[in-house]
């Protein structure tokens, strides 16, 4: 893009050969010492000449060379033009040296380029320019910002621009100007503003960084306003990440709630069924990329059922071949399914390698939606929350409104009686186990969109999902939902307060203590069923 712009710029200039920059300033930028360079850049910016943008761009791209320490050339593809006049130079002089762009100059150039773009006619470009300037504009940009502010018609950009202007004016020598700037900054919601204001209130030895007491008081008030806005943003972010983690836990634990909660089967391979779903998504993605690159953005539509059926098939095969023979012996089931998980992990390692594989987000899931300033909800997380809700509704519907659900509940409550009235219990077991495994596959599909996909994927979630089911209580979907959301939120809030690892340990400790008080979980079955 940049190269194209430069090429276009070059073409235009070559056609018209029309710019005239002061040669001494150009030389100072290209070959002066650090202070001279920055000073020259700010002078050039205010000159308003058409060649400035092209010159700065060439500097940033490393296309500027100095001939004999005097003449500054923009050289690209063996074509040279004079940086000061824009005229073509033919042939190229022999004694060319690269102009050195250090980090300080680069920073100045970038903010100067943004300042120049403030004059662009494209709103998006102006907005982007303001955002760059927010993170650091020098005093030399002030005149440009001022003129841009006068010209600007868009209300949003005006607001941002005013804040940028204020943050630059803070450095001004005039106390009244500083006071106005500080007051204007109260409207800001940029975390940098907080640092800026805090800097004013800092004590340097005996005196404050800001000499004027009135300005300091105003800064204090502005600081509070900014801080409260920022902490609201923080809180919303925390709630969102908590809900997001909760939705992931819910997806991971829903399948377990069926196999463990309803059927009483301890499936230690549940995590690996999640992994199978994630790898199915990976395969679907590769298939789309190879066969139908045009439809790549919609590969998830195929991946979701693929993940479901892949895991469901694996799950049903396990039920038929191993778990069936261990009903009523939960401890043995635990060991056997652990063995299955080891075999699944090693199979995936042998097939796909031990490294993580890449699963890309479709374009419509990347990026995010900005709710308020500093609060961006990434689309993939939003989609997963919706997906978890959809899966939950579907499972609820299946269990309470369909014939299969009726059978599953009947077998759960009284296997013998269900069998007597003609429920094919063995088939129901297989199907229910397949359903639980399929939901694990869906969880894997969702997880592939936000995290790494590797052979150990399942191991990271197995302890967590068991905790959700144990906390929620056996045999009830509502318990699983509350436990997943509760654990997700608690985890994120504790994390902000004590760090990720300690938060996790605290949660585990809490569950261990909680189970002491209510061994049957949040939502215990009452009456005879409790001891079944």
């Amino acid at each position, binding site marked *: 893009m940049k190269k194209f712009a430069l090429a276009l710029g070059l073409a235009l200039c070559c056609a018209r050969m029309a710019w005239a920059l002061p040669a001494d300033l150009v030389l100072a930028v290209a070959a002066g010492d650090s202070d001279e360079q920055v000073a020259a850049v700010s002078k050039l910016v205010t000159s308003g000449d058409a060649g400035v943008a092209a010159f700065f761009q060439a500097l940033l791209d490393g296309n500027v060379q100095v001939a004999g320490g005097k003449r500054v050339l923009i050289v690209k593809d063996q074509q040279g033009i004079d940086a000061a006049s824009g005229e073509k130079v033919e042939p190229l002089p022999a004694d060319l040296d690269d102009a050195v762009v250090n980090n300080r100059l680069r920073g100045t150039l970038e903010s100067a380029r943004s300042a120049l773009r403030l004059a662009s006619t494209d709103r998006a470009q102006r907005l982007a320019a303001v955002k760059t300037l927010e993170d650091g504009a020098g005093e030399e940009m002030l005149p440009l910002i001022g003129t841009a502010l006068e010209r600007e018609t868009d209300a949003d950009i005006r607001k941002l621009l005013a804040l940028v202007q204020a943050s630059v004016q803070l450095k001004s020598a005039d106390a009244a100007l500083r006071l106005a700037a500080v007051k204007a900054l109260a409207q800001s919601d940029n975390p940098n503003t907080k640092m800026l204001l805090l800097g004013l209130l800092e004590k340097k030895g005996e005196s404050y960084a800001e000499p004027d007491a009135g300005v300091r008081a105003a800064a204090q008030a502005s600081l509070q306003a900014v801080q409260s806005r920022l902490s609201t943003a923080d809180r919303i972010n925390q709630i969102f990440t908590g809900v997001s983690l909760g939705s992931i836990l819910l997806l991971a634990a829903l399948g377990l709630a069926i196999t463990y909660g309803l059927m009483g089967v*301890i499936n*230690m391979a549940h995590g690996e069924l999640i992994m199978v779903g994630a790898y199915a998504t990976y395969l679907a993605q590769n298939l789309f990329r190879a066969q139908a690159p045009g439809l790549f953005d919609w590969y998830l539509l195929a991946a979701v059922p693929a993940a479901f059926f892949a895991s469901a098939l694996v799950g049903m095969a396990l039920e038929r071949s*191993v778990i069936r*023979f*261990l009903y009523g012996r*939960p*401890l*043995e*089931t*635990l*060991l*056997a399914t*652990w*063995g*299955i*998980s*080891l*075999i699944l*992990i*090693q*199979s995936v*390692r*042998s097939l796909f390698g031990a490294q993580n594989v890449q699963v890309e987000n479709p374009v419509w899931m990347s990026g995010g939606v900005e709710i308020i300033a500093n609060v961006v909800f990434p689309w993939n997380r939003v989609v997963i929350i919706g997906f978890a809700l959809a899966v939950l509704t579907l499972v609820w519907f299946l269990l309470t409104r369909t014939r299969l659900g009726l059978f599953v509940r009947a077998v759960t409550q009284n296997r013998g009686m269900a069998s007597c009235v003609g429920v094919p219990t063995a088939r129901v077991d297989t199907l229910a186990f397949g359903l639980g495994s399929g939901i694990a596959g869906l969880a894997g599909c969702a997880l592939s969109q936000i995290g790494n996909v590797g052979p150990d994927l399942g191991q990271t979630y197995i*302890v967590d999902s*068991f*905790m959700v089911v*144990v906390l929620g209580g056996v045999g009830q979907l509502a318990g699983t939902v509350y436990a997943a959301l509760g654990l997700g939120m608690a985890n994120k809030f504790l994390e902000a307060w004590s760090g990720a*690892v*300690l938060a*996790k*340990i605290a949660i*585990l*400790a809490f*569950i*261990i*203590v909680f*189970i*002491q*008080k209510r*061994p049957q979980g949040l939502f215990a079955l009452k009456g005879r069923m409790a001891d079944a």
Partner: protein
Amino acid sequence: MMGPLASHIGRLYGRKGWIALALCAAVLFVAFPLANLALPKGNLLHISDYTVALTGKIMCYAIVALAMDLIWGYTGILSLGHGLFFALGGYAMGMYLMRMIGREGQYQSDLPDFMVFLNWKAYPWYWSFTEHFWYAALLVVLVPGLLAFVFGFFAFRSRIKGVYFSIITQALTFAFMLLFFRNDTGFGGNNGFTDFKRILGFHIATAETRMALFIASGFMLMLTLLFARAIVSSKFGRVLTAIRDAESRVMFSGYNPVHYKLFIWTVSAVICGIAGALYVPQVGIINPSEMSPANSIEIAIWVAVGGRGSLVGAILGAALVNGAKSVLTVAFPEYWLFFLGLLFILVTLFLPQGVIGLLNPSREKRA
């Protein structure tokens, strides 16, 4: 005074049993040291240092398997936390061994290298006195014992049993693993403890020290076997078996299962801790991956392979699985997990009595 006790011990095994034990003792305490230290390298009967180290390691595992058999095979409680107790014992011993490095570490500091790396100036409080061997030995017993006692007290009192108990112990182990992975916990984080130099003043890498550790492990293994046998053949042991088979009936007969379970659970944890303390100086490293849930489940499979509720089976299982592991992970690293996974499945499906059950088909069948 020694008369009744001696005759009590004498009754633990029959004549054949004692002869077998004496034979094992002869092999471990006479044949191994002679063949390893006295015979030259080229000799046909020479036992290599590798074999000694491997056998020593397996004996530590066998002690853990015995502890597991007491709690799972006899009492019916499947613990997925025994790897944690093993590692805690190992860490307690490791603290002493770290202290014994002195100034011979990379940074020639009084503090262990990892503390220098973290820029710590002094030992944290929980490291105090660990330079004394007796104190470290006390920790080896007390830390796993106390943790098991407190955890078990709450768990058994609220009648958590079966799979619930297994999952909760797994969560406990997982939490401790995360805790020990942190650098700030003060146990070396990821890398744990390693680079030990000496134990009780002896250099840790010499063949003689290694043989002494080997003999200590063998001695501990035999002691544990006799102790476990004494427990399970006593009246107390019969109550444990009764708890396994029908806990509510035991309760209705006037026993309080909580006391019995708590005692055997704590004893089992302490035995694991001791095994861990013997294990660490022999392998020369302890890190948090010893606490990973997978390790604890593997302990259960040793016991299941050998045969639950037979003590000797536990030892046999630990030896078989770990022997196979050390051969297969070298020969076919790709297939070891397949093999282990299949072992889990086949043993639970087809060998509920374990290998002992195969050797001894007349043993009464258990449901």
